[in-house]
């Protein structure tokens, strides 16, 4: 186990290197020149050269990459090029709202979809099952953008059930006032696909031989469902949840934009828009690392719930 973790961590190094390379190529090639943003309305060649020197853009590509390597090694990405604030403090401010928003969406959606999926799988083939599947499929066919635009317009503005937008400093205030509508919309968007996926996990498990054994033992159907099937079906479910955890940080761009929630998704767009390379680098590297860590954690959790799994 320990050796396994060590090896997996070592394997992250080439991946991180690849991510860095990809990022570096993409953004040095196409990322735009931030000096033109900093220079403002009017500029001259000297100003521009000064700015480029200050940003380190006048160094050779190789030297710039070496700096990048050093930044990744120390996880210190310096200051933002657009507003000259430490990248770490910018991201620190952004993480909270994203995690809160996406976390609640994920939590509500997961709890609802797992419980509904197990119920629907239990009555699989019935009218209820088919209706739920049909509703889910139809619900999934509508673009998230439409849900958000229409939801904000009607639920918040026309009906006045929720504030139109906003974000406060107090967690409780956010939870009670600002979160409900975006979370509701987020759940509407993610519930249907989750429900369908989890249902298929449950249904697939119910076809296994051990279910027959459990029946032959005289267990009742609910017990079979809740004990035997659930535990097995949770394996893919938990894995998919673990894999989606890094997206907590990426946030929900559309929701953040429409509800003025100061999350990571907006920061990414803003950083790209302003060619704020340090911020882009930091976000990407952090997310890459987190993705890998969560992948590893997913495998370890997998091992915990499925004793068959051997970590090699």
């Amino acid at each position, binding site marked *: 186990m320990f050796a396994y973790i060590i090896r997996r961590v070592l394997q992250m190094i*080439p991946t991180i290197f690849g991510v860095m390379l990809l990022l570096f190529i993409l953004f040095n090639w196409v990322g735009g020149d931030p000096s033109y943003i900093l220079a403002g309305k009017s500029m001259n060649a000297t100003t521009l050269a000064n700015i480029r020197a200050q940003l380190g853009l006048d160094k050779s590509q190789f030297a710039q990459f070496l700096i990048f390597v050093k930044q990744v090694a120390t996880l210190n990405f310096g200051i933002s090029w657009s507003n000259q604030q430490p990248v770490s403090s910018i991201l620190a401010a952004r993480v909270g709202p994203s995690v809160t928003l996406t976390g609640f969406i994920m939590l509500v959606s997961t709890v609802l979809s797992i419980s509904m999926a197990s119920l629907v799988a239990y009555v699989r083939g019935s009218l209820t099952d088919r209706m739920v599947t049909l509703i889910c499929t139809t619900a999934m066919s509508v673009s998230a953008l439409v849900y958000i635009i229409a939801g904000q317009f009607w639920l918040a503005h026309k009906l006045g059930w929720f504030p139109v937008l906003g974000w406060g400093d107090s967690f409780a205030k956010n939870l009670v006032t600002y979160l409900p509508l975006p979370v509701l919309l987020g759940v509407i968007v993610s519930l249907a696909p989750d429900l369908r996926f989890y249902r298929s996990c449950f249904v697939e498990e119910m076809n296994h031989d051990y279910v027959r054994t459990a029946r032959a033992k005289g267990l009742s159907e609910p017990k079979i469902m809740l004990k035997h099937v659930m535990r097995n079906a949770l394996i893919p479910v938990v894995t998919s949840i673990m894999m989606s955890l890094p997206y907590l940080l990426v946030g929900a761009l559309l929701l953040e934009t429409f509800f003025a929630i100061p999350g990571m998704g907006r920061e990414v*767009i803003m950083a790209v828009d302003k060619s704020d390379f340090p911020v882009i680098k930091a976000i990407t590297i952090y997310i890459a690392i987190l993705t890998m860590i969560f992948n590893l954690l997913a495998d370890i959790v997998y091992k915990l719930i499925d004793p068959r799994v051997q970590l090699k």
Partner: protein
Amino acid sequence: MANEKGSRSLWALGWKRLRKDHIGFVSLWMVAAFVLLALAGALGLVASGWRNEVAKPYAPPTLLKSLGPKHVQLTAENIDAANKASEQANGQPSTGTSLTADEDPLAGDLAEASKNEGQYQEAATQKAETLPMGADLRGRDVLQKVLKGTSTSMLVGLMGSLAAIVLGTIMGGFGGYFGQKIDDLLMWFYSVFTSVPDMLLLLAFSAVLRRGISTVILVMALTSWTGTFRLMRAEFLKHKSREYVKAADAIGASHLRRMFVHILPNVSYLLLVQFSILTVALIKYEVILSFLGFGVSVTQISWGSMLAEAPAELIQGYWWQMACVTLFMSILVTAFSMLTDSLRDALDPKVK
């Protein structure tokens, strides 16, 4: 069991099962109808005149006229008249510029040209007050737009997922089949791509390339091949140790033959399912891309570029473009998803 019924390939069996599945079969017809529509759109048989300004700006849908807001729609003539009035008040010339003929180097040429301008005069057309599905800002027919948009969105979805599938299958196939160094390399590639947030990849790729349908397709392919790669890698890995592949090895079939003649047809039903899943995903993805400003160019129209106009329209009360696109998109996507489910059941060789 099937002997007496004559020979049927697995595809034929799948087809037979699909026909038994009413929902799946109806979905298939609906998807087929959309594909036809898309083809007709692409060939210019349908909605070729979507760019014509046939109605007044934001003309409401004919049947639901009363549900539209009653805003005054300004026209260029209003603006011209208002400007003329203020020009007169300020003593500006009523035509041309304040330049005298000898101040303007083109004055003579313009005078000469004006003799020939007759051939370019266009008769003013009567603009419709209402349209079946209403009109947009420029008075274009929303129905025509959505039909043409269907064509673009489906093209984007189908081509994008095709490209992603091809990319994912080739890479996944080589990785899974050969394993070892090639697999390590491809897996490295894969983990790099999956570790970078999609949004960044998207923004980066979009920034390099020009706007247009081909770019959207390319960006989609570049950001969505990973799912297929994973799937195909696992399948090739599984199939390469299957006995029929070993048998092919034993009879002397080359690696490429084993990969693409033997294994590929056996995993292709998964690809078909994956293809339809991806198509649906990409049709929805295009909406987000368009909203972020990476959609198709001005002379093209897609569902996404129509929905990107929706937020601004909705606050003015013009709901019909959003409703129309949502309706079309739901029908297609629902049918496509249902078809996917049915395909998955029908083509799975385990279910016989």
